């Protein structure tokens, strides 16, 4: 190589932050254009759960009075985690596997980890918005919802950690699962996650079903449900909030490490 190499015509500076916000803006723009689809996608399932379990069964006398109060925070948790996961996992599998749409972003002047971080941030934002929408929906369906202003800080913390948890699960699934298996994996993961995350029952009450209590304790979503219950209906027995937060921080960290590693493996040979 020659020593007389002229200064490379590289741009004066490369702003990774600018690339990051541009990619985020693209995702927000697409969601904005598909708003009705987005709302239907995120609201329909919890709406029906809320309506059938909270309203119909209650009106028919199959559930005790007050069940909808403990169900509501659980469904907030469910919406948070599932929306975060779906927002990230499905498009990621499709973009890496079929459409290759992600390539243009992988070739943007930003670190590959930031492309993954944008996915996580965007999925978390969507999860938090979807969950917030559940509050007016709950008021409409149930007539009233359990609400405690003093519980809002804990609720918000659980919301943030829960949406990151969902995004982390989505990142891991979206990068580890080969496109051909996505349907199988989703049915194998989705349904158990939905029903073992303590959204429809408080965890301490499972002491009568010890084996199931163990199973649910392994699902990190349980700790989102329990923390939200602690925030909104503290009179219902629940796992101590600090335990929930410790477990959630740990789970989110582990999922991010595995997920970002998986992302690198898919992005760079």
């Amino acid at each position: 190589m020659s020593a007389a190499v002229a200064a490379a015509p590289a741009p004066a500076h490369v702003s990774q932050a600018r690339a990051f916000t541009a990619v985020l803006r693209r995702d927000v723009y697409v969601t904005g254009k598909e708003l009705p689809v987005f709302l239907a996608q995120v609201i329909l399932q919890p709406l029906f759960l809320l309506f059938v379990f909270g309203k119909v069964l209650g009106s028919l006398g199959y559930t005790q009075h007050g069940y909808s109060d403990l169900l509501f925070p659980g469904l907030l948790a469910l919406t948070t985690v599932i929306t975060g996961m779906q927002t990230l996992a499905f498009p990621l599998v499709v973009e890496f596997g079929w459409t290759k749409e992600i390539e243009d972003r992988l070739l943007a002047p930003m670190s590959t980890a930031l492309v993954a971080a944008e996915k996580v941030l965007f999925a978390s934002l969507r999860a938090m918005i979807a969950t917030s929408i559940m509050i007016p929906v709950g008021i409409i369906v149930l007539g009233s919802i359990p609400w405690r202003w003093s519980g809002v800080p804990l609720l918000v913390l659980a919301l943030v950690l829960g949406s990151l948890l969902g995004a982390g699960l989505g990142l891991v699934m979206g990068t580890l699962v080969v496109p051909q298996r996505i349907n199988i994996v989703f049915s194998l993961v989705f349904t158990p996650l939905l029903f073992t995350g303590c959204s429809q029952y408080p965890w301490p009450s499972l002491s009568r079903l010890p084996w199931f209590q163990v199973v649910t304790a392994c699902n990190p979503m349980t700790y989102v449900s329990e923390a939200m219950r602690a925030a909104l209906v503290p009179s219902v027995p629940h796992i101590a909030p600090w335990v929930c937060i410790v477990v959630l921080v740990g789970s989110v960290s582990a999922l991010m490490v595995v997920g970002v590693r998986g992302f690198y493996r898919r992005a760079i040979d």
Partner: protein
Amino acid sequence: MAAIRGNGRVSAPAVEVSDLVKRYPKSPVNAVDGISFAVTPGEVFGLLGPNGAGKTTTIGMLTTRVRPTSGKAMIGGIEVAADPVRARSLLAVVPQRSNLDRSISVRRNLTFHAAYHGVPAAEATRRADELLEQFGLLDRADVKPDLFSGGQSQRMMIARALMHEPMVLFLDEPSTGLDPAARLFVWDRLRELRTRGVTLILTTHDMHEAATLADRVGIMDHGKLLALDTPEALMRGLSGSSTLELSVNATGDGDGSARLAGALGTLPGVERVEPLHDEQGNGQTDQWLLRLYVSGEASQLVGPAATLLAERGIELSGVELGAPTLEDVFIALTGRTLR
């Protein structure tokens, strides 16, 4: 390595690869096996090779998508593996298969791409209009790129790639699957880019494309660079591949085609004579086709060959000259085996 540009200044190569190796985990052989080359700014460089030769892996290492096992890949003086972010700001990739963003319109594909690369919005809008116009996409600018033909997608991807004014543009099989008109259109655009000083690196197995567009061609196989030169020099270097085909009418009891071939083989410059087929005409006349492989210019042999035939009373009915093509060079280097 450095290139002397027309103005006498020494400038860094646009692309430089030295002893580049890639071995994939669990593979017994190197996918790219220690290749080196440099491409000067504004050059059109074609990378040719059969499937699995290592072209795509080489491009992958230059475009930050494949991590080299050893060696160096540089873009504009920046080592790609060490500073992928900066390298990405200098390059653009047009893949063979569409990877356009199907959720947004063609125009947004262009402007968002520009935004990823930090081009200010007003400037991005201006460039998008210009490129959409230039690539004949204005009437479809506000449609999502879902249902577009291969040729249209290709044009869109090239337009998108140019939005951040890359120093080096990589194109993978730029005209595979395009109809002839679309192919000519793409070629014209690529030639324009070259006049604007954009360095183009294309991988192709279309010899015609390489010979038409590329200033220099590298032929790869089994991870190694087998030859690297201008298309003309590569073709010139292939001895014995100029050909002269003679169709002759011989009377039934004239020379047998084998004897005639033997005689033609003694002409100066003829390396080999291959009798192609003896056509039984109407029973009276044999039509013979003979191919002469020539080391020099085939046209110079037309006269001597005609004289030789005339001396033997054989009527010459057709002459065809064949110059070696890049395809001959390619086949000579990589063999004919399908893989």
